């Protein structure tokens, strides 16, 4: 009988049929090798879990550390930009002061009477005051821009840091739960599925939260627009002051006003 089966079909199939035909208990024997394999695989899963958890935790810590490094670089870059801007403007102001002083001297040369000389001095003082006021307004606008950028970045960092912590905690928790379930003898297939689901959820939450983060680039644009508007407002006040100073000077020069206009 056995010989017939062996010639009619493959040896494995024949053996299975024979064993199944023999007794129900034999069926268990037939499936036992598969069960043993699954147990080994599941056992390996649970055994290697702690190692995987450590590897993931280590990787997350490393990536989190890189975020810290990126923030340090960001601070350095922002500081460098502020310093570069300040130096550029300081240099520009020094050059402007020299040019203005020269222009004043040329104007002084046209004043022939004492009243005209006094008027020129008054004019110079008014222009200098207007320049100082305008510069202070510019400085305040630039300072507000920088503070705004800094605050936007710090606020965003705080949000992102919280998101990262939540993500890392959820990951650690998922592995801890899986290890605990393995220790409790829970079927490792279930443990694995639960772990995958938890890790997936943790990652999805992180990615989703990140997408809703404030767009700091747009904030910087808005702050720049606000700063530029402050520049314009200061310019308007500056122009008015200049016009008033010029009008006063021309009035002092009387019919000689055309020489300084």
């Amino acid at each position: 009988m056995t010989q017939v089966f062996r010639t009619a079909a493959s040896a494995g199939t024949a053996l299975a049929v024979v064993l199944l035909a023999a007794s129900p208990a034999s069926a268990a024997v037939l499936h036992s090798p598969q069960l043993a394999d699954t147990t080994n695989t599941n056992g390996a899963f649970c055994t290697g879990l702690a190692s995987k958890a450590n590897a993931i935790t280590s990787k997350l810590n490393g990536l989190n550390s890189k975020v810290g490094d990126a923030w340090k670089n960001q601070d350095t870059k922002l500081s460098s930009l502020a310093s570069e801007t300040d130096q550029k403007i300081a240099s520009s102001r020094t050059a402007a002061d020299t040019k203005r002083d020269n222009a004043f001297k040329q104007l002084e040369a046209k004043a022939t009477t004492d009243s005209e000389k006094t008027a020129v001095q008054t004019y110079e003082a008014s222009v200098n005051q207007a320049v100082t006021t305008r510069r202070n307004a510019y400085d305040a606008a630039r300072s507000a821009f920088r503070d705004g950028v800094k605050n936007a970045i710090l606020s965003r960092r705080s949000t992102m840091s919280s998101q990262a912590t939540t993500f890392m905690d959820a990951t650690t928790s998922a592995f801890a739960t899986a290890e605990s379930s393995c220790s409790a003898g829970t079927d490792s297939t279930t443990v694995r599925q639960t772990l995958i689901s938890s890790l997936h959820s943790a990652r999805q939450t992180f990615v989703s939260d990140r997408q809703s983060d404030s767009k700091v680039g747009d904030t910087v644009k808005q702050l720049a627009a606000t700063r530029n508007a402050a520049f314009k407002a200061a310019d308007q006040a500056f122009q008015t002051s200049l016009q008033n100073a010029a009008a006063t000077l021309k009035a002092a020069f009387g019919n000689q006003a055309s020489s300084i206009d």
Partner: protein
Amino acid sequence: MQVYKSDRKQAGVAVFEVLAVVVVLALVVGAGMYVAHKHKTPSQAASNTSNSQTVTTKPGTTANVDQLVEQAASSEQTSASSYDTQYQQAATSSDSAMSNMGGAYNDSSF
């Protein structure tokens, strides 16, 4: 004789390789110079703007003073705003590091 022919052949190949490397290097340097020329730093750009300002008014007049102080104001504005793009880039520079955390693991690989 065979060895001599082979040596000449190898020498020819070596010369060709050296020429190829020289051509590639020339292309890379040329491209680099072109890019550097196209992307001047903001400070250079601001400096150029400042230097390009010309005085068109008569010296010894209030118009001359007005023009000088207005040019100075404009120069300051240019200096301040010329870094805006860099500020935007710096503000988002840490984003990729944070996004990388999301790729710490592939959950389906477990």
